[in-house]
C-alpha cells in the first residue's frame, strides 16, 4: 500500500489501577476504507474507541492523524480533528426537538436533512421531540448527524444492532458509498454478515493487544475467530469436565419451559428448557437480548410474545414477586441493583422473608438468625464488616446476593454474570456452590461473559445471537472456540470431534 494512513495508532496502552485494559493496541486506518475492529468481550475494543474519541486518555502509545500527533482530551477535540462517533445507544436529548439537538452540536441542518432522506426516512419533522421519534429512527438520525459534519473518520459502534433489516441495509449502503469519497470508517459489529458486506480490513484485539490485521475475503471468519481466541484453543481443551457425569445429571424434569419468547426490541424468539438439577449456561455477545431474557424470567419485564411455563403450568409474571412465589430468584450482575447497601448483611439476606404482607409483623429473630447464619456459613461470607453491606468487598457482596436466595430456599436461580469483577477465589467458591445447588436438584440459569466458565460450571450452553437461540451445545464441546463461533452466529465446526475428554479432566476441575 502506498497511501499514507489517515489515522495511525501504535502501542496504545491504558491501565485502570493494576488492571491493564489495553497493553499494546495498534490500528492503521487508510483513507477511504471501512475498517472493522473486532475482539471478544473484554479484549479492549471499547477502551480503544474511548481513547480515540477523547472520552478517556491513554497512558502510553502514539496516535497520529494525517501524520500529525493526535491528542483528544474531549469528544469535542476529537470532532475538531475530524473524528466523529456514533454509538449503539441513541444520543439525542429526549426532551429537545430534533432541530434543537442539532443546534446543540452545531450540526448544519441542510446536509443533515439530505442525509436523513438518503438513509430512508423521508418524512421527518425537525420540530418533533426526540423522545417521540422511534428508537430505530433515532439511531439513523445519529448517523445522519455524524455524516452532516462530514468527518474524515467515522466511528460506528454497534450502530446496526437492533435496526430493522431494511434500515440496516440502507445504513450499510450509505456508509459504503461514503467511504468511496475518501473518508474512512471504523466499524464495530458482531455480525460477520455485515462485516463481510461492508469492510475492507479488520483489526483483531485480544487481551488488550492487536493480534492481527486481516483483509476481508470469503472465509475470513475462521481466521478472525482464531485470532480472537489465540492460545485459548489449547487451554480450553484442558478444562473439560467428565462427560459421563454431566449426562447423568441433566435428566431432571423440566422446571421452566420457554417458548418463542419475545421481549422488548432485542430478544426476538427464544425457546429452551431449564431442567431440575442442571446449570444451563447462556452465552451471548453484549446486547443480544440476554438482559431482556433474564428480566422476563424474573418477572421485571413483561414479554411481548411467547410463553413461560413453570413446572408444566403457564406462568404470567406481572411483578417479580410472582416469580419469587414460583421459587424463581434473580441475581443481577450489578450488585448495586440487588443490595440495600446501607443495611446489614443479615437484613439483606433476610429481605425476601419480609416481602409478603403476611410477614410484616414481628420478626422471629431466632428462626431468621438460624437461616441467615446457615446461608452465611454455606457461602463463607466474611462478616467482619457486616453492619453495612457497602463495607464488604465486591466478592462478599456478590455472595450476599446469592445467600439471600439460598436462605429463602429458591428452587431456581437466575444468575446474570455473577463473577464479573470479583476475585478468583470467590469465583471458584461460586462455581462450586452453583454445582452443589444443581446436585441438590435445583435449577440454575447462568449467563456469563467469561466463556471458560461454561465448561467449569454448566451442563450445556444456550447460545443467543441477534435475539434468537442459534445453538445449544452440550458441555463436552462447549469450549471457548466453539462458543465464540456460535456467539458470532457461525455454524459448528464440521470436522470437530466432539467428546473424548483428555485424561486430566477426569479430576473434575469444576469443583476445585
Amino acid at each position, binding site marked *: 500500500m502506498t497511501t499514507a494512513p489517515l489515522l495511525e495508532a501504535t502501542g496504545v496502552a491504558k491501565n485502570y489501577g493494576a488492571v491493564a485494559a489495553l497493553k499494546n493496541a495498534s490500528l492503521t486506518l487508510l483513507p477511504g476504507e471501512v475498517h472493522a475492529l473486532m475482539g471478544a468481550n473484554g479484549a479492549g475494543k471499547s477502551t480503544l474507541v474511548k481513547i480515540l474519541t477523547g472520552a478517556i486518555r491513554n497512558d502510553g502509545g502514539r496516535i497520529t492523524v494525517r501524520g500529525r500527533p493526535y491528542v483528544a482530551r474531549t469528544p469535542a477535540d476529537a470532532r475538531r480533528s475530524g473524528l466523529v462517533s456514533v454509538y449503539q445507544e441513541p444520543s439525542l436529548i429526549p426532551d429537545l426537538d430534533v432541530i434543537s439537538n442539532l443546534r446543540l452540536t452545531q450540526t448544519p441542518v441542510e446536509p443533515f436533512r439530505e442525509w436523513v432522506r438518503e438513509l430512508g426516512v423521508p418524512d421527518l419533522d425537525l420540530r418533533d421531540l426526540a423522545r417521540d421519534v422511534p428508537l430505530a429512527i433515532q439511531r439513523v438520525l445519529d448517523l445522519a448527524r455524524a455524516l452532516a459534519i462530514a468527518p474524515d473518520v467515522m466511528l460506528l459502534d454497534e450502530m446496526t444492532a437492533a435496526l430493522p433489516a431494511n434500515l440496516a441495509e440502507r445504513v450499510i449502503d450509505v456508509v459504503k458509498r461514503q467511504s468511496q469519497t475518501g473518508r474512512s470508517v471504523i466499524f464495530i459489529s458482531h455480525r460477520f454478515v455485515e462485516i463481510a458486506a461492508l469492510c475492507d480490513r479488520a483489526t483483531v484485539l485480544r487481551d488488550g493487544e492487536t493480534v492481527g490485521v486481516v483483509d476481508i475475503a470469503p472465509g475470513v471468519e475462521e481466521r478472525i475467530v482464531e485470532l480472537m481466541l489465540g492460545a485459548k484453543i489449547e487451554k480450553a481443551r484442558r478444562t473439560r469436565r467428565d462427560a459421563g457425569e454431566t449426562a447423568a445429571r441433566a435428566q431432571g424434569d423440566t422446571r421452566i419451559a420457554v417458548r418463542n419468547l419475545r421481549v422488548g426490541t432485542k430478544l426476538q424468539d427464544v425457546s429452551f428448557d431449564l431442567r431440575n438439577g442442571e446449570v444451563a449456561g447462556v452465552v451471548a455477545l453484549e446486547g443480544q437480548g440476554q438482559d431482556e431474557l433474564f428480566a422476563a424470567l424474573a418477572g421485571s419485564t413483561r414479554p411481548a410474545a411467547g410463553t413461560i411455563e413453570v413446572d408444566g403450568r403457564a406462568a404470567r409474571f406481572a*411483578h417479580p414477586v410472582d416469580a419469587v*412465589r414460583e421459587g424463581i430468584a434473580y441475581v443481577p450482575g450489578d450488585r448495586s*441493583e440487588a*443490595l440495600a447497601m446501607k443495611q446489614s448483611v443479615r437484613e439483606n439476606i433476610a429481605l425476601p422473608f419480609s*416481602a409478603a404482607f403476611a410477614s410484616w409483623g414481628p420478626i422471629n429473630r431466632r428462626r431468621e438468625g438460624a437461616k441467615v447464619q446457615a446461608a452465611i456459613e454455606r457461602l463463607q461470607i466474611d462478616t467482619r464488616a457486616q453492619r453495612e453491606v457497602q463495607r464488604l468487598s465486591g466478592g462478599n457482596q456478590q455472595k450476599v446476593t446469592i445467600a439471600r436466595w439460598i436462605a429463602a430456599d429458591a428452587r431456581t436461580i437466575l444468575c446474570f454474570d455473577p463473577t464479573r469483577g470479583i476475585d478468583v477465589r470467590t469465583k471458584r467458591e461460586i462455581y462450586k456452590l452453583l454445582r452443589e445447588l444443581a446436585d441438590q436438584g435445583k435449577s440454575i440459569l447462568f449467563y456469563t461473559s467469561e466463556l471458560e466458565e461454561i465448561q467449569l460450571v454448566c451442563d450445556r450452553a444456550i447460545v443467543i445471537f441477534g435475539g434468537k437461540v442459534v445453538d445449544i451445545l452440550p458441555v463436552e464441546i462447549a469450549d471457548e472456540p466453539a462458543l465464540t463461533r456460535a456467539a458470532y452466529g457461525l455454524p459448528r465446526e464440521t470436522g470437530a470431534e466432539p467428546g473424548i475428554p483428555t485424561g486430566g479432566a477426569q479430576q473434575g476441575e469444576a469443583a476445585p
Partner: protein
Amino acid sequence: MSISASAPASVPAGRRIRRFMSDYPLVPLVVLLLLLVLVLHILQPGIVNQRWIANTVKFAIPLALLAGCQTMTMLTGGIDLSVGTVATMAAFIVATQGVDNPPAVAMALALIPALLIGFANGIGVGVFRVHPLIMTLGTSLIGVGCLQVYQRTVIASGAKVPEFLTWLGTGLTWGFPNALLLFIPVAALLIFIQRRTGFGRLLYAVGDNERATRLAGVKYWQVILALYIFSSVLAGIMGLLYIGLIKAPSLSLAEPLVLPSVAAAVIGGTSIFGGRGGYTGTILGALILAVLTTLLTILQMPEGARRILFGAIVLLVTAAYLRIIEDR
C-alpha cells in the same frame, strides 16, 4: 488503655473514632443535649430543675410525635408535610364535636380525616408515584380548605376540649408529665416497628434501594400505603394530645411544628434520602430543639435574631453531625 489501644495499631485514632460514631450515632447527640443543658445552667443558674425538665418534656413530646411521622416516611426517602394539617384537623374536630358527643366519639370522629388524608397520600405516592413532598403538600392544602368549610358549620356551637385530653396534655403525676403515658408506648411501638418487624425492615430497604426490594418480591405501593396511613394516624393522635396542651383550637394549631418536626428527625440522624436513621435519634433531636428554644428565649433577644440563630444552629448541628457519623 494503652494496651487495648495498641492492638489495631494500623487504624489511626481519628478513623476509629469516626467508625465508633458511625456505629453508635446516638452518642454525639446525647453529648450535645447535655452540653446544651450545661450552657443553659451556666447562663442562668438554677433554671435546670425538675419543674423545668417536666415542662420541657411536655412541650417536646408533641414535636417528637410529629417527628415520628417524619422519621418513618423519611426512612423510605419520603416526607409527610400534611402532618400539621392532619393534627390541626383532629384537634379542631375533637374540640367542636366534644360539645355534643361523648369524648370517645369525638376522638374517633377526629381521626377520620387523618385516615382519609393518609390513604390519599399513600395512593398518590405509592401507586401514582407523585413525589411525597408535592403529594403531602397538596393533601395538606386540601385539608386546610375542608377545615375552613367545616368551621362555618360549627361556628355557633363553640368548643369544648375533653377533660381527659387536658389531663393528658398538661397534667403532672408525681412531677412527671401525664403525656408520657401516651408517648412512652407510642415511642416503644415506633422503635419496635423499625427494629423488629418485617414492615420496619422494608421501610429501610425501600428507602435504600427500591429496585432491590422489588426483585426480592416487595410490592412498593403496599409498603407506602401502609406507611402514610400510619404516619397520618400518628399525626392525628398528636393533634388530640396537642389540643389538650394548648386548649384553644385554631385553624393553624400544629402548623408551626411541621418544619421543626423535619428538623428534629434530621438532627436525630435520619437521612432524608432514606435507608438510615431511627426513632431514638429523633427523640433526642426533639429534645435538643426544645432545650435550644428555652436557651434562645432566656437570651432575651428580639424575635428576629432568635429565629436567625435558631436556623443557623439547626444547620450547623445537622451538618456537623452528618460529618461525624458518615464513615468513609
